[in-house]
């Protein structure tokens, strides 16, 4: 009798151990994907910034606001097309191109959410970020963007009851504080007094934080019933359509040289090299971003993704040999500390990411 009990105990211990390892593996992969988001997002800043130093963008006067905004629209469009091509290769290798088509055609019920996510993350967030850069300053734009996980977590909480645990809230706060410690001191030295229409910059900063935060929550709504790899390709397909069929034709109609900028970009080898490098970073950054949502939730995925602030400075330092100031260390410690707080959260606490499972509980 005691032998039977012993075998049963061994079996239940083995089952408990297997369940723990299963939950830990899901959590670990969720954090690995979110960390890749941060690394690739940080890396993206190098080609993304270098592009401005190549023709035709280098020839645009700094005070020609309309032409600079047109340039942003053109480079975002060409960039989105390149990201789409990389994702096509990615899904081709994974064998998911057919599933992309099956998801994309369900516009009224499913892929409309990816269309909305592309508006939040594209025209709203990117345009807002450039407004913040142009009307207040680049550091202000960087700092305001750091708050996007707060908006993402709040929207996910209110909309479909995603669990925001104490670990997640503390970790998120530390990562944001870390980002502010990195960029904040420079903000005080930024000359904002002479800027005209500064309110447009503040509005832009808010648009970037809300836009990127909302993108995660909206995309996760579609990923409830669809695959993240095919979802991200839907999102970029819609982004190409918004810029290519709506925004660029409207800009062109107002007399801005949209088509000349596109042809000059495509004809310039160095500009295209930077766009290709930026696109490959962005394609896999976004893929990792979306894949992390399903495993650890929108709030955690976006907060770990926020470590891009650290990686961006490290990559720029590696390529320009301009090393970040000493207070970077404080920001680094806070951001890394916040990540560890999040990672210490018990794996079984995030096997289900939402509080409610009853009808009407989560919508």
């Amino acid at each position, binding site marked *: 009798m005691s032998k039977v009990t012993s075998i049963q105990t061994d*079996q239940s211990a*083995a*089952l408990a151990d*297997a*369940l723990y390892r*299963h939950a830990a593996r*899901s959590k670990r992969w969720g954090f690995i994907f979110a960390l890749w988001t941060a690394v690739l997002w940080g890396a993206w800043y190098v080609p993304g910034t270098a592009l401005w130093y190549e023709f035709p963008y280098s020839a645009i006067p700094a005070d020609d606001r309309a032409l600079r905004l047109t340039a942003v629209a053109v480079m975002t469009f060409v960039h989105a097309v390149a990201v789409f091509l990389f994702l096509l290769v990615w899904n081709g290798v994974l*064998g998911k191109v*057919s*599933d992309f*088509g*099956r*998801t994309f*055609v*369900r516009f*009224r*019920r*499913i892929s409309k959410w990816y269309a909305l996510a592309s508006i939040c993350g594209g025209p709203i967030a990117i345009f807002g970020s450039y407004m913040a850069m142009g009307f207040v300053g680049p550091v202000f734009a960087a700092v305001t963007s750091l708050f996007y996980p707060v908006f993402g977590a709040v929207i996910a909480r209110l909309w479909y009851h995603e669990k925001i645990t104490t670990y997640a809230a503390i970790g998120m706060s530390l990562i944001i504080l870390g980002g502010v410690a990195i960029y904040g001191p420079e903000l005080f030295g930024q000359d904002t007094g002479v800027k005209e229409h500064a309110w447009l910059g503040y509005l832009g900063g808010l648009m970037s934080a809300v836009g990127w935060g909302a993108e995660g929550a909206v995309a*996760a709504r579609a*990923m*409830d*019933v*669809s*695959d*993240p790899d*095919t979802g991200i390709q839907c999102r970029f397909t819609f982004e190409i359509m918004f810029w290519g069929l709506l925004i660029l034709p409207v800009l062109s109609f107002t007399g801005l040289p949209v088509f000349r900028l596109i042809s000059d970009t495509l004809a310039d080898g160095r500009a295209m090299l930077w766009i290709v490098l930026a696109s490959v970073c962005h394609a896999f950054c976004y893929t990792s971003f979306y894949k992390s949502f*399903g*495993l650890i*939730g929108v709030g955690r995925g976006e907060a770990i993704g926020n470590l891009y602030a650290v990686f961006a400075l490290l990559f720029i330092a590696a390529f320009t040999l301009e090393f970040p100031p000493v207070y970077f260390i404080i920001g680094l410690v806070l951001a890394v500390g916040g990540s560890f707080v999040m990672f210490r959260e018990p794996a079984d606490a*995030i*096997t*289900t*990411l*939402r509080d*409610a*499972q*009853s*009808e*009407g*509980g*989560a*919508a």
Partner: protein
Amino acid sequence: MKIHQKGFLLQQLSNSDRIWDVELVKRLLGYYGLTGLYWENNTRVTLDELTAAGLIKSVDRKLVDLGGRTQLIFEYQLTPFGRERMIDTGLLQEVSP
């Protein structure tokens, strides 16, 4: 056109009270004409995502010997929230395979 894979899994679960993942994997691979460990694992990850999102829940689990290796398998059931989400996204109205 066939339904997408996550939709297929939800539809299978909506037609039964509960199904083991081994059976779900078999049905999915058969329906889409897929073979191999990659697709088996890919389907299990999809089931993990559906569980994390609260659309399905595991109601039983056990360790079994599959092809010479011990594997943890789960029995899944559609949750009321999952059914609600299927109605939202039109998956319950479509004809199941």
